[in-house]
C-alpha cells in the first residue's frame, strides 16, 4: 500500500470517527454521573438538522455548530426532566428520546431537504492541506481538532478537577454524595446537558464534514455505535479516543477494501459491518472477566436517585 493511499485512508477514517468520538465523549460524562441516556441517536439527529438549517440559513458553520449544541442540550433536558425530576425509567425515556429526535428532525428538516451547503473544511492554508505528507495533520475540519481537544478536556475535568471528582462521586454513590451536601440532581442535570450538547455537535458533523446535505435519518444509527463505544472504552476518555478511531477505521477499511477489489474481497462486507459490534461484545466479556480488578461501569448507572 502506498503512502498516498495510507494518508487518504487516515483522513477518511478521522472524518468517520469524529461524530462518534464527540457523541461518545458526551455520553461518557453522562454515564460517569450515573445516568444512562440511550437517546444519543435522537440528540445527534436533532443536532444534525439544526446544524444544517442554521449553516444553510446563515452561511456560517460556526453558528451552525453552536446551534447544534444548544439544540442537542435542549432536547436532552426533556430526558433530564423526566428521569431526574420525575424519576422515570431511564432506558424507556432514552429510547423515547431517540424516537422523538428522529421524528422532530424529519419534521423540522422538511424545508431543508434537497438543499446543498459547503463542507466545513480545514482552515489551514492550502500549502499545508494539499501537501502530500503534511496534509495528514492539517487537512481536517476544525471540528476534528475540537473533538481531540475535548478528549483531553474531559479527561482533565474528570481526573484533575474538584468538580469532576464530585461528578464521579455522584455516579458511584449518589446517597453519600447527597449526604455530604452535593446536589445529585443538579450535577446530573449538568452532565445530561453536556452530553446533549456533545451529541448535537457530533450530529452536526454529518452535514458539515461528511455529506453536506440534510436527509431524514442522516446519522444512520451511529448514535448506537457511540453508546457501544463508551462501554468499549470502559468509561475512560483515552481509550474512547482509541476506540472511536478503531471503529472508524473498521468502517473505512470496509469501503476501501471493497473499492480495491481483488483479495480484499475475501472478507464479506457483512463481517466488516458487524465488526464494531463484535468488538464491543468481546470487550464487554473481557471487562466482566477482569471486573474485580479494574474499574468499569459507574455503580449508580441507570438508577434513579430518590433522596430518603
Amino acid at each position, binding site marked *: 500500500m502506498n503512502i498516498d493511499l495510507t494518508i487518504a485512508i487516515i483522513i477518511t477514517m478521522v472524518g468517520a470517527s469524529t461524530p462518534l468520538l464527540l457523541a461518545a465523549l458526551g455520553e461518557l460524562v453522562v454515564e460517569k454521573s450515573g445516568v444512562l441516556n440511550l437517546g444519543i441517536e435522537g440528540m445527534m439527529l436533532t443536532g444534525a438538522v439544526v446544524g444544517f438549517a442554521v449553516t444553510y440559513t446563515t452561511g456560517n458553520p460556526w453558528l451552525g455548530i453552536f446551534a447544534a449544541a444548544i439544540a442537542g442540550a435542549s432536547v436532552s433536558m426533556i430526558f433530564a426532566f423526566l428521569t431526574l425530576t420525575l424519576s422515570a425509567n431511564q432506558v424507556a425515556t432514552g429510547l423515547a428520546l431517540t424516537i422523538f429526535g428522529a421524528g422532530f428532525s424529519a419534521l423540522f428538516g422538511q424545508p431543508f431537504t*434537497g438543499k*446543498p451547503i459547503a463542507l466545513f473544511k480545514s482552515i489551514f492554508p492550502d500549502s499545508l492541506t494539499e501537501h502530500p505528507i503534511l496534509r495528514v495533520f492539517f487537512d481536517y475540519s476544525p471540528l476534528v481538532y475540537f473533538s481531540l481537544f475535548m478528549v483531553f478536556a474531559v479527561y482533565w475535568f474528570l481526573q484533575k478537577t474538584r468538580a469532576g471528582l464530585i461528578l464521579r462521586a455522584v455516579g458511584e454513590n449518589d446517597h453519600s454524595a447527597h449526604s455530604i451536601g452535593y446536589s445529585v440532581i443538579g450535577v446530573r442535570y449538568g452532565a445530561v446537558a453536556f452530553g446533549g450538547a456533545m451529541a448535537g455537535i457530533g450530529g452536526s458533523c454529518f452535514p458539515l464534514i461528511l455529506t453536506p446535505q440534510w436527509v431524514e435519518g*442522516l*446519522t*444512520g444509527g451511529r448514535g448506537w455505535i457511540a453508546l457501544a463505544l463508551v462501554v468499549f472504552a470502559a468509561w475512560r476518555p483515552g481509550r474512547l479516543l482509541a476506540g472511536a478511531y478503531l471503529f472508524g477505521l473498521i468502517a*473505512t477499511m470496509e*469501503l476501501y477494501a*471493497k*473499492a480495491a*477489489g481483488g483479495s480484499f474481497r475475501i472478507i464479506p462486507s457483512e463481517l466488516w459491518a458487524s465488526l464494531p459490534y463484535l468488538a464491543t461484545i468481546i470487550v464487554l466479556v473481557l471487562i466482566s472477566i477482569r471486573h474485580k480488578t479494574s474499574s468499569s461501569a459507574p455503580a449508580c448507572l441507570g438508577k434513579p436517585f430518590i433522596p430518603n
Partner: protein
Amino acid sequence: MKLINRRNALKIGGAAAMLPLIGSNAFAKKDKVKAAFVLIGTPDDNGWNYGHDLGRQEMITALGADRVETTVVTNVAEGPDSERVFRELAQQGHDIIFGTSFGYGDAMLKVAKQFPDVKFEWATGYKTAPNLSIYNARFHEGRSVLGTIAGMMSKTGIGAYIGSFPIPEVVMGINAFHLAARKANPDFITKVVYIDSWNDPAKESDAARALVDQGVDVITQHTDGPAALQVAEERGIIGGFGQGADMSAFAPNAHLTSIIDIWSPYYIKAVKSLLDGNWKEGGSWEGLAGGEVVIGDYNSKVPANVIAAAEAVKAGIIDGSVHPFAGPITDNKGTLRVEAGDVIDDGEFWAVDWYAEGVEA
C-alpha cells in the same frame, strides 16, 4: 387457525358490504377515481419518492381534478406496517392503490386478495394478481447512456458504481453502464461498492472517497441521494450522474447529466383505464422509448462529440438498433455468457447474477 380464518372472512365480508359505496361494478366506467399512493419516504427526497409524487401531480393535471382525487401516505416502512396502510386505504374506498416500493409486494398481494374490487399497482414488482398489476421502468437503458459518457470522458479508465444491494435491477444497471463504457474504452474498469443501505449518505460519501482515492474519476450510484455526486464535486474529479432526478444543484461542476424517472405516463394510463372501465391485470416496463426514463440536461463541460455519442445510443435504444445487453458478453470470471448476435432478453434479465468482464465487484 379457525378464528383467524373467520376474522379474515369477516373482513372480506365487511369489504364486500362496502362495495356498493365505492363503485358498483369494477368493469363499469367511472366518473371519478379515488387513487392512493404509498411512498417509502417523503416527496422532498429529490429522488425516487419525488419522481412518484411528481407523476401523481402530472396525472391529476392531465386527467383533471374533477376526475381523480388522490391520497398520499408517506414514510411507510416495508413489511407489516405497510399491510395495515394498504388495508386502511382499501377500506377508505380508494379505487386504485399504488405501492411504490419493491418491499411492499407481500403486503399488497395479501390485501389485494381481501379487496378484489380495489385495483393495486406495485412498482418494481414481479408478481401479478387479478386485481394487481406491476409497473417498472427500464432504468438500465439510461445506464447505457451514462456508461457511454463515462467511457469517453474518464481519463483513468476507472469508473465506479455505488450500489445499495445486489438485487437484479442493480446488477443489470452495473452491467449496462459497464458494457456501454467498454464500447468507448475497451479497457474500462468499473469498481462496484455496495453500501448495504438505500439511505446512508455518510457511508455513501465515504465509499465515494474510497473510490476516488483509488483512481476512480467517474462515479455513478444506485442509491436515492446526491452524496456521491457531492464527493465528486469536492474532489474535482471528472464527474458523476444524478439518479432519479436532476441533481445539478448539489454538484454544478461534477454533474454530467442525470437519469430522470418519469412516472406520469404510466399513472395517467392506469387511472384512465379505470375511468374507462378497461383496467387489466398486467405488467408495464417502459424505458427511453416510452418516456419513462429520460436523460437530463448535459453539463456544459461534456464535449460535443460525447453528447453526440450519448444521444446516438439513446436514439438507438429507442428505435431498437442498439440493445444494452448485446452479445458477445463474457463475465468477469471468463465465461462467455451471451453469444455474438444474441441479447439478454426481458425474461432472462431478472436471472442475471454475474458481472460483465472488467467489473470489479
